[in-house]
């Protein structure tokens, strides 16, 4: 199950990290936090570009 990690530094800056979600489902978890303040950086992890529910297929020769 996906987890949202919220970290608040010594100056009160907040960073969000979604673990265990693929595709745009991570944004469902972070959108609730839009009212925390101004977003200064939005970095998408490689999992964001995977389709949710995608089946990984290996092909042998």
């Amino acid at each position, binding site marked *: 199950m996906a987890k949202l990690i*919220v*970290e608040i*530094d*010594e100056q*009160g800056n*907040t960073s969000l990290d979604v673990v265990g979600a693929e595709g745009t489902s991570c944004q469902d978890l972070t959108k609730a936090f839009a009212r*925390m*303040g101004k977003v200064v950086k939005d970095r998408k992890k490689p999992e964001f570009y995977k389709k949710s529910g995608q089946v990984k297929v290996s092909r042998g020769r």
Partner: protein
Amino acid sequence: MSAYNEIDTEITDRDCLVEALQELGHVVQVHETPVQLEGYHGDKRQQRADVIIPRRHVGSMSNDIGFVKGADGKYKAIVSDYDRSRYGDAWLNKVRQAYAAKKALKLAKHAGMRLVGHKEIPTAKGKRIQYVFQK
């Protein structure tokens, strides 16, 4: 008379601000409409605030500390020159951090998320707060 300084913050939620100040051990007065701050002689100053730490709880020679919401919806901290030595940037950063922690918990609760982890990580400058939520 010690001049007041206004310091910008990103704080918008009064309830979370009050909870944060109380968590830091402050006595807080909340007014529905901003009232004049008091200087250390009991004199009324022209600066107004709706969230106030009364001067007697700031220090023996202190002035009220206030927070007032600006037209942009963000609170400004109002701290006198005299009190900035104790209630300067380091203190305001603690307020910002405590506020962010309260706000994160509130937003997560409203979004139906469950708190499954909480850590406070000591650092050279204080601590980092980490929450883990699941929906």
